[in-house]
Each structure stands twice: as C-alpha cells, then as structure tokens.
C-alpha cells in the first residue's frame, strides 16, 4: 500500500486502506460520485440499504434543512435485491476496488436472512451492514404506542434474535447499525454483540420533525424524518463513547462528521473507523480530505497508530 499505509485498517476482516468510509444512503450505489472523487481512495463504501423487493419510498417533500443539519424521510426507496445484484453491485465493482459493504433492510427477520443468503453468493462484497435502525421500517410490538410501531434496534430482544439468525446465515463480516432513538444504547449494543455481530455501526438518525409555518403543514410529507448533520454530532459522540466502553467489538462511528476534527473526536472515543454521511452532499471531497487530515494529524503529533489516539486521562 501507499505511503499512508499506517492508516490501513482491518475491521473484522474487512481490509481498508484507511478508516474513512461513506455511510449508507448518502452515497447511492457508489457510481453517483465517480465523476467527483476517486472512489479507490475511500476506506469502504456502504451502499444504500436494499430490501428484498423494490421499495417506492415516501412521497415528497422528503428532505428539509434544519439548524446545522437536515431531516430526511426517503422511506428506503431502493431497487430491491434482484436489480441490486444484477446491475448495481457489478456496476460498482467494475469501477472501484474499494471494499463494498452492503446495507440490508427488511420488514421481518426472514427477509434479512434471505437477502443475506443471496449476498453470500456474490463473492464480491466485503461485508454486510444490517440496517436495523431505519426509522422508515417499523415493527409492531404490543406494549408500544409509538405511531407505526418500533424500530428493530429499539428492542434488545428483537435485536438479539435478528442478529443471531443472520449470523447463522453468513460467514461474511457482519456489521449491525444501531438507532439512537433508545433509552440505553449499551443494552442494544450488548445484545448485538452477544448475538454474534462482528462490528457495530452508529448512529443512524434521531427521529425529528419540522413544521412549515407558512403552509401550516409538516415540512415532510411523512411528517417525521431522520435528523443528520453536525446538529447530532454531540449525541453520536456520547453514544459511541458509551458503546466503545461497553462492548469489545469494533465500532464504526458516524453522525455529523464534516471534517478532520470531527473525525478525530470520534477516534478519540475509540471508534475503529468513521463514516461520512451528509458531509458527502455538502462537499463530496469530505471523506478524502479527512483521510489526508488524519494522516497529517498523526504525523504532526508523532502518533503511530489510530489506536493510540484515544482520550488522555485526567484533566
């Protein structure tokens, strides 16, 4: 590898030339960015979440700006497993050698298992990310009054069950992506770890809402949506810190990472890698600038490995 090989990162067998990934849903199927950045320089690409069948997604408006962030209610629009396997995945593999991690969504445990089995056969993907934290796919549970049910990873037991089943179905590195919309994220993180997850990734979007006071309507047709951007960074950092202090498996951190400083904050709370989300929309160069920035920081501070970057003790 090149002169920056001290950034080389192996997470549960996913070998990345650097620890800077792009987050699911913010990078399409990869090819959308090919004219703007050198995909080969990314640590890994996580695809838009795919489901068994194609999903139409939510009606517009689907996005709206908020203070230092945005809300989205895309509704997991995606081409579905078949088209993904036939067109999108081969297309992406053709244009880059960067590890591809496929984000998987579903409405039932069985659906997750089916997609996983199909992905096993591709032979070209580096890992699977289970999106069990999408605010747009809800699971009906008896004792909740939440409109539309709960998100899988809002429940410890469902998380355990879902991850266990998928674990049995694959030998691929298994990443589990968690929702921040929970009372205690360490409980969910432990459940996923116990069930056999190789890696955790967090955070998905906190649920939010905005109102357009001129029309007196919710700004999003779906009423609520997921919040992302710098606004959520403090919440993400706190949760990553809580989780890395709780589990032994590596954590991929995301939530408002827009530049090197943001990324460093997450490494200092012991993230194994970081992912850029909406940062890609604002400046497609963000992940590559962060790679450079981290390399620089480590050199300037004579730090040999990312691991040695954690918080210093005392005040």
């Amino acid at each position, binding site marked *: 590898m090149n002169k920056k090989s001290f950034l080389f990162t192996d997470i549960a067998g996913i070998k990345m030339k650097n620890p800077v990934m792009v987050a699911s849903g913010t990078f399409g199927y990869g090819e959308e960015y090919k004219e703007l950045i050198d995909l080969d320089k990314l640590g890994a690409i996580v695809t838009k979440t795919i489901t068994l069948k194609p999903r139409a997604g939510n009606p517009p408006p*689907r996005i709206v*700006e908020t203070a230092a962030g945005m809300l989205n209610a895309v509704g997991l629009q995606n081409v579905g497993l078949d088209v993904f396997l036939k067109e999108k995945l081969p297309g992406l593999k053709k244009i880059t050698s960067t590890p591809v991690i496929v984000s998987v969504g579903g409405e039932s445990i069985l659906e997750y298992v089916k997609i996983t089995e199909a992905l096993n056969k591709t032979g070209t993907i580096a890992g699977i990310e289970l999106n069990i934290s999408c605010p747009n796919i809800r699971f009906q549970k008896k004792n909740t009054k939440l409109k539309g049910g709960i998100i899988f990873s809002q429940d410890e037991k469902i998380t355990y069950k879902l991850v266990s089943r998928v674990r049995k179905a694959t030998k691929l590195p298994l990443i589990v992506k968690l929702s921040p919309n929970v009372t205690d994220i360490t409980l969910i993180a432990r459940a996923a770890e116990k069930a056999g997850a190789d890696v955790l990734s967090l955070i998905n979007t906190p649920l939010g809402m905005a109102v357009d006071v001129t029309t007196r309507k919710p700004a999003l047709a779906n009423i609520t949506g997921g919040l992302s951007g710098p606004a959520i960074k403090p919440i993400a950092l706190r949760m990553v810190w809580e989780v890395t202090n709780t589990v032994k498996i590596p954590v991929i951190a995301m939530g408002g990472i827009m530049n090197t400083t943001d990324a460093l904050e997450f490494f200092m709370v012991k993230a194994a890698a970081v992912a850029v989300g909406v940062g890609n929309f604002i400046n497609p160069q963000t992940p590559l600038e962060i790679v450079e920035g981290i390399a620089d920081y480590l050199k300037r501070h004579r730090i040999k490995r990312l691991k040695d970057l954690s918080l210093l003790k005392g005040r």
Partner: protein
Amino acid sequence: MYQIKAKIIANRRITSRYYNLVIDAPQIAKFAKPGQFVNVCVSKGNEPFLRKPFSIYRIGPQNVRKKSKIELLYKVVGKGTDILTGNKTGDYINIIGPLGNGFVLPPKTNQKQQSEIILIGGGIGVVPLLFLAECLKNNRSLGVSVLVGIKSKEESFLIRDFNKLDCRVKVATEDGSNGFKGLVTKLLKEELGFGRSSSVCMSYTCGPSLMLEKVSKIAEKNKVPCQVCLEEYMACGIGACLGCAVKVKNGHFPGFKYVRVCKEGPVFDSRQVIWGE
C-alpha cells in the same frame, strides 16, 4: 459533472430581490445544456446547511466558441440566497455542475408548419428558458414564442433578454401593470386556440408547480408535446440521496414510481408527471 472552486466575475443587483451572478467555470460552461443546473455551496459553515440548486441562465461569452462563463439569475427568498448576494467580483464559490438532464431540443425538420416553439415561464422560472431560447435561436431557425407570467412590471427585466434574442414575447402580469392582466396560462390558451396549435411542435415550461400543471393540461389538450422543468428540495444534486423525488407514471409500482428531479430531471415530459402527489 465537476466540483470546482470558481471565480466570481460579477454579482449584479437587478432589483432588490433579483441578482445576476456570473461565474468563471469553463468546464461547466463547455458541457452545459439548457435546463441543467448547478448546485452551489452558499455558506462557509452550517447556515444554511445544504447546497442550493440554480438553473443555468446563460453561457458566455456569447457567440464565441470557447465558452467559459456561466450566468445565474437568482431571487432572494431566504438565508441561502441572501448570503449569495454578499459575494463580490473576485471571490470564489464552490459549485457542482452541470447537473441533471436538460431540455430535449425539438427534432430537426423542414416542414414549415411544424416549426413553432412556445416557451412558458413563470417568474424566476424563465431562467432555464432563456438558455434554451438562445440555443434554439442560435442553432436553428425556429419561430420561438415566449409567454412570461410575472407579478408586476417591476419584474419586467425578466423578459428583456428574450426581446434581445428576437423572440416573440408576450407578458402577463398579475396586476396588469405590463401586458396582459391575468395568468400566463390564459395567454397560452389563446396562443394554442383556433387550431393554431398544429403549427407548434414543442412547448417548454418552467415556473411554480401549479402553473406547470395547468400548462401541461392545456398543452396536452391541444396535443402539443410539453417539457416541464421541475423543482424539488435537493440535498446532493447528483442522484445519491433520493431526496428530490417526484412521482411519475409507468413505474415498477402499481401505476407509478418516484424518480429523481436532479438526475432523471429536472426536465420531464409533461405526460409522465403525476401532479400534486
């Protein structure tokens, strides 16, 4: 598609709410087609958070082979466009473009009776139509009529550049302070009435979505093909976020699918669009 830090050549105030921004962007100027847009990073920080999309108004310099500048025309409506007004000649601005699919130019034809083109613009929606009109005028010898709907005569500058192009221009103002008093759709109805529509081979429209819907219906009724240029809230502008969806016919889903305004659009065949959903 390029992301460039482009130099600002000029940022002229036209009226208190409208500005003309000229940017040195040879790569974008070279490939841009009418109907395409650029996604502009307006702030240095998080306020506003997203890039803001603007149609290309014109490519310059005029009549020169090596085009190197793009021109935008923008209306100040909020924080982002307000910040934009603060840019000065010599400043740099980060833009991505050209984005989206532009207008499809009418098929070349020798039949005189089919060579009328109508452009229908509402307010700031004239922007992509000017670039289109230039292309139509420069590259082909077609009769181009432009119907423009504006609030009042303060916005008359919006038709100035069409006049210079020697288009046939008609104006409708809401208050009657310039041209016809009423909606531009009324002008369109007249234009296509009395069998005149048969000489019109294509119509193009851009403006508020209620206007677009009406224009589409009138065009369809008169059997004139119509290309509409849509707007939707955008985040990435390059097809990655699926934020800018609009509903169109004939999809995988029973009777519809969502497509991306930034990628499959912003120009659509009017008959494909499912309005108001």
